């Protein structure tokens, strides 16, 4: 029980600094979990982060769940997940209350008028950052273009397009393997770069 509370507290403290995306957490987690508490080895934490990136959901939360599990099994995983989520949850709810209270106020409306194009820039920037790891060859470029068309012009549901992407990955690699074409399907560093700040 004491260990579970310690896990909870560790991730509770770390959570508010996950501002710059999940990977901003790595050095801090390493210091806490590896050097201070001596729960895990350094390489283990790095591996867990890579693994956390290949599971749907925010990398910071997934990594916390993974690390909690490695330390104390299922209850550890749950303690870490709750710990990492609670601070940001309350911050966001506080902002929501603030938003309900002030939306409609001319000054606030004016601020949002200016913020909206900045959000568009933020999103374009997110796409820009992952271009190298996502579009690695002509095939992936075609997949990206096709997916974009399906979304914008044919109004496919995003969930359906995501499923199509997964299936097309298997099919395309299958076909390429048959034809004997080499494909760079894995690049560990690329994946790291792709997820860096992906969930700012």
């Amino acid at each position, binding site marked *: 029980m004491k260990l579970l509370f310690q896990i909870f507290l560790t991730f509770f403290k770390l959570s508010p600094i996950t501002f710059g*995306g999940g990977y901003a957490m790595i050095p801090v987690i390493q210091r806490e979990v590896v050097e201070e508490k001596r729960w895990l080895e350094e390489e283990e934490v790095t591996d867990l982060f890579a693994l956390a990136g290949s599971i749907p959901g925010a990398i910071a939360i997934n990594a916390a769940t993974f690390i909690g599990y490695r330390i104390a099994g299922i209850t550890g995983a749950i303690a870490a997940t709750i710990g990492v989520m609670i601070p*940001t949850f309350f911050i966001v709810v506080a902002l929501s209350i603030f938003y309900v209270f002030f939306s409609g106020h001319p000054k606030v409306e004016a601020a*949002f008028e200016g913020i909206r194009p*900045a959000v568009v820039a933020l999103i374009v920037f997110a*796409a820009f950052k992952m271009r190298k790891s996502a579009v690695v060859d002509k095939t992936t470029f075609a997949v*990206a273009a096709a997916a974009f068309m399906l979304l914008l012009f044919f109004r496919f549901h995003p969930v359906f397009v995501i499923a199509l*992407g997964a299936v097309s990955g298997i099919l395309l*690699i299958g076909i390429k393997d048959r034809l004997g074409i080499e494909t760079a399907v894995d690049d560990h560093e690329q994946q790291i770069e792709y997820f860096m700040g992906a969930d700012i």
Partner: protein
Amino acid sequence: MLWLLFKTFFLTGLVSFGGGYAIIPVIETEVVWQGWMTTQKFTDIVAIAGMSPGPIATNTAVFTGYQMAGWAGAAISALAMVLPSLILVLIVASFFNRLNHNRVMKSIFYGLRPVVIALILFASVKFALSTGMAAEVNLHVASLTGIFIVSLYSLVKRGTHPAYVIAMAGLVGMAFYS
């Protein structure tokens, strides 16, 4: 309402590959389709979620949940977003590392990554349309486009922190649009 929020965000959590902005159009499609709010209001929520610490997709879900059904809505949305990941992490953790070296898994991501980039670009186009950036040519639209260009420039070339960009754009808006 709570059940609807749970269902929507559980599904969203399940397909949240790549995290962050790729998931924004998934939530947007659901939220607008359900008639919960307009794209424009949703953009405001994304802006606030982007300024808060923590993952943007989860923050957006919590914010939407709160707007729709108060505290309970926020809690249900957070739970629904994290539950699929939690279950999958527990499954993967029990056969640690084998997944990472699996060729099928790698093929899936080979196809998923370009889709993620398409989703993000799609989100930017949708939001740009909702701000009226492409509607007509006048001074107001030109100034919005100006904010967009300056923001993108500072993010790409100057490495400015996203929260700082949003704050500055807010101040500019306050100064010029009120």
